[in-house]
């Protein structure tokens, strides 16, 4: 790893490696409490991927900076932020601009998102000679599956998953895909154009066809104490280690539902953490699930074997594996966080005191741009989320708008790779580009079918009732941003069969910086259950621009310097 640099946090010197995020450097030195809310609570990093906005700190006087997204630089002065933050002096008075003055960048194909699906789509379209522009919000693309470390970190890939990601990126760069890192796409204008901020300026990016590959973020399952510093998503814990080589604590408990939890348990154990327990809501070894396990083994024996090996490794490392159990409550105690495990339906279970709790309950598609453009979605009870309606070639109901990967229905990274290739080649054909000799999508379709069957069996194996709001108590916050409790939300939702918009206006739930990404699906599911409202596109908060918070000076910094 690279040389150390030094930042200060609340006046204390903290070491960091070049390429590490502020959040990672702070977590590695035990600083988990990063901001204070209007309600007086302390918050830390929760999602670790720029979505939740809970890790806001003041950096060199600038408030509201996401610690998980800002790279540490030598001499940075970082302060804990009280709510609301001060507004710093203006950087510069700028003359007003209009939309028409914005710079426009054009290409044949625009790809939004640089994970497995986006990179694969870009490469396939580029291999047919098309001019491909890929926008990724991170400084180091690779998405949430490949989780690439920053080049400045000079870290060796941890395993094949990370090596594959690096290789795919290199192939894209080698093939001449134009990649813009650190570009936040905040609005979709039509099927072929978006607006994004990059390096403090906004531009319109326009192409003849577009691929949305914006991935997914982690689903929220509120339990008492889930907003405490040190409680984070399993993905955040994984990002800290894989992308930043930082561990936020030594004793770790991981709880939730789905195969990622065991994988991350093994990864952080290999990094030296003491994973005391992994709680999995599904009773994986119940006889009723044997069929699903068998089907998984049939469709992908090596992945199934890898899953079993993970279990064995976690056990050997000393983790207690609890199947059919969930984390029921977390509280701050002397020396860390006390977690209570138990069955999802009630009863008190064993307690553990740890430094960090990781909660992983699967994912929610990041389909905001697709919904904003009017692409049709259907609710899929199997994944408890909206699935983008697509043709076999991954085109949405909006012509020339393609969608691949988890953004349109949680198929996993391997399926995203195949969908990317299929979409990229379909776009090439649509635009009249010539594909290289011998390339056909038949093989990709065949592999995709296999991945989908495996995924379906995996979903059945891990099937567990969604806890929804049931594990929260009256005082538990459901909307983390605006600090709306379960009791307040239930009262608003029980009053006259309101729409989700009415619930938002009554309670402020969903009006905060995360734009309702965590509480929205929970409220929609509850309203559907109570009132019979369909769980369609309109059941969620309207996907309005900006689909990510954007700094106003960046947003209107459109003219060339």
């Amino acid at each position, binding site marked *: 790893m690279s040389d150390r640099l030094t930042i200060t946090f609340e006046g204390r010197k903290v070491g960091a490696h070049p390429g590490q995020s502020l959040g990672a450097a702070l977590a590695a030195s035990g600083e988990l409490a990063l901001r204070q809310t209007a309600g007086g609570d302390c918050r830390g990093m929760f999602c670790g991927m720029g979505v939740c906005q809970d890790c806001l700190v003041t950096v060199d006087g600038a408030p509201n900076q996401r610690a998980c997204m800002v790279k540490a630089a030598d001499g940075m002065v970082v302060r804990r932020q009280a709510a609301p933050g001060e*507004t710093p002096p203006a950087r510069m008075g700028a003359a007003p601009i209009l939309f028409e003055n914005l710079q426009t960048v054009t290409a044949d194909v625009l790809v939004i998102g640089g994970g497995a699906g986006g990179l694969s789509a870009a490469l396939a379209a580029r291999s047919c000679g098309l001019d491909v522009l890929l926008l990724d919000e991170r400084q180091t693309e690779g998405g949430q599956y490949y989780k690439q470390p920053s080049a400045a970190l000079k870290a060796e890939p941890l395993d094949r998953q990370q090596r594959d990601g690096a290789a795919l990126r290199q192939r894209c760069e080698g093939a001449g895909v134009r990649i813009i890192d650190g570009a936040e796409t905040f609005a979709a204008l039509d099927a072929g154009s978006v607006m994004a901020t990059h390096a403090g300026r906004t531009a319109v990016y326009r192409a003849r066809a577009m691929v949305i590959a914006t991935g997914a973020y982690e689903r929220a399952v509120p339990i008492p104490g889930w907003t405490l510093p040190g409680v984070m998503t399993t993905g955040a814990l994984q990002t800290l280690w894989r992308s930043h080589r930082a561990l936020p604590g030594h004793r770790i408990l991981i709880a939730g539902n789905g195969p990622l939890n065991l994988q991350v348990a093994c990864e952080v154990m290999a990094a030296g953490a003491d994973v005391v327990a992994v709680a999995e809501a599904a009773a994986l070894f119940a006889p009723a699930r044997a069929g699903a396990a068998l089907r998984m083994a049939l469709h992908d024996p090596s992945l199934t074997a890898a899953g079993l090996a993970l279990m064995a490794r976690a056990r050997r490392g000393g983790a207690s594996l609890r199947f059919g159990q969930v984390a029921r409550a977390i509280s701050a105690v002397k020396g860390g966080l006390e977690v209570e495990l138990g069955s999802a339906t009630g009863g008190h279970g064993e307690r553990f005191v740890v430094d960090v709790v990781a909660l992983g309950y699967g994912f929610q598609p990041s389909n905001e741009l697709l919904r904003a453009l009017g692409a049709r979605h259907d609710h899929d009870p199997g994944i408890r989320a909206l699935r983008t309606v697509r043709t076999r070639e991954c085109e949405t109901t909006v012509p020339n708008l393609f969608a691949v990967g988890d953004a349109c229905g949680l198929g996993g990274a391997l399926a995203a790779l195949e969908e990317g290739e299929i979409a990229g080649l379909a776009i090439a054909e649509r635009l009249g580009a010539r594909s290289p000799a011998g390339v056909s999508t038949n093989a990709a379709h065949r592999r995709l079918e296999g991945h989908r069957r495996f995924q379906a069996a995996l979903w059945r194996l891990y099937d567990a009732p969604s806890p929804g709001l049931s594990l929260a108590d009256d005082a538990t916050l459901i909307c983390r941003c605006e600090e709306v409790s379960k009791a307040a939300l239930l009262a608003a939702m029980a009053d006259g069969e309101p729409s989700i918009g*009415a619930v938002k206006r*009554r309670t402020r739930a969903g009006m905060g910086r995360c734009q309702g990404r965590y509480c929205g699906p929970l409220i929609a599911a509850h309203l559907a259950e109570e009132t019979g409202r369909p769980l369609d596109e309109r059941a969620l908060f309207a996907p309005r621009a900006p689909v990510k*918070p954007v700094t106003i000076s960046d947003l209107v910094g459109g003219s060339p310097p």
Partner: protein
Amino acid sequence: MSGFDVLVAGGGIVGMTAAFDLAREGRSVIIVDEGRHSGTTANAGSLHIQMQSRFIRMYPEQVADLERSLPLYPAGAAHWRALEAELGVDLEIKSSGGLMVADDAEQFAFLADKCARERRLGLDVHMLERAELARIAPYLGDAVHGAELCVEEGKLNPLKANEAIRMTLQALGVQRLDEAVITALSPAGHGIEARLSHRGGQRSLSAGQVILAAGSGTGQLAAMLGVAIPTVAEPLHVNVTEATAPLIGHLVQHAERMITMKQLGAGQVVIGGGWPARFTGPEEFPTVNPASMIGNLSLAQHIVPRLGSLRVIRTWAGVNTTTDGQCVLGKLPGHDNVFSAVPGDAGYTLGPLVGRMAAALAMGRDPGHDIARFTPARFAKPG
């Protein structure tokens, strides 16, 4: 079929405040709301008093009417304070003053002229030169040359206000039917019969009286009774920033460009002022237009440069109603038991006052203001 004393079409601020007065006087009331335009309560919370320059520029032929309506605005803002006391809930009403800023001497002269006319009409308005302005509004940038200050202008928290009134109505036993579309209105006996489609089903209601407080939908409802009211829906863009420490005390507008800005109690800055949004889909769902987001925020940063470091976290499309710049308030011609209640421009400022006056009309009482020229009969075709 069930009978009510009064059916109020529209569950926004006008309909709710009309229902409030009627229910307090013992009338049985049902509110029917279409719930299409964001539940019709997507308000931004400005309390406007001085003439908005955007209307003077857009509709110069309406200036005389605007001036005639002017005394209603301070009364509307004062009525909000009375309503707050009656509800017994803190609506975060602040009469912190409103500034209309000018970029240069020419705009300043335009404002000075407007200020003189408004003073003659009784408003508490003053012109502020740069130095004096910097003292009371240090957040304004160097681009601002001077401003007109309207002392009584201000703001309130529209979410709190709408919710407080809704809860009060519930306690008073006012019934409410949301996501219900009135498909027909017809005289029946001494009352009116309304046919509705409600969440996929059909039903009908009868009421002794009807108040049309449906904003831009009022024209369509009046047409069912053969009366013309030319209401036009104007979807408008609103931006909201993340919360920050107190920065902008006033309601801020511009002499020539479309903007309103104010900071609410929780610290967010709400920025709007007439940039267009649009309707999409068969249900005409109001949707924001990214070009308006850019233009509106760019202007905001030009006036208050420190806004540049804040992030915009939320936008919405509110629906303004325009007619001829004046309220449409009074008995529908040919229908003694149907009243229209549409505020003129700045519908939220005037909303509770118009609601109260409509309720007074329905109860056969004096509305307290001269409303003769607001009559819907003015739109009737001659002959």
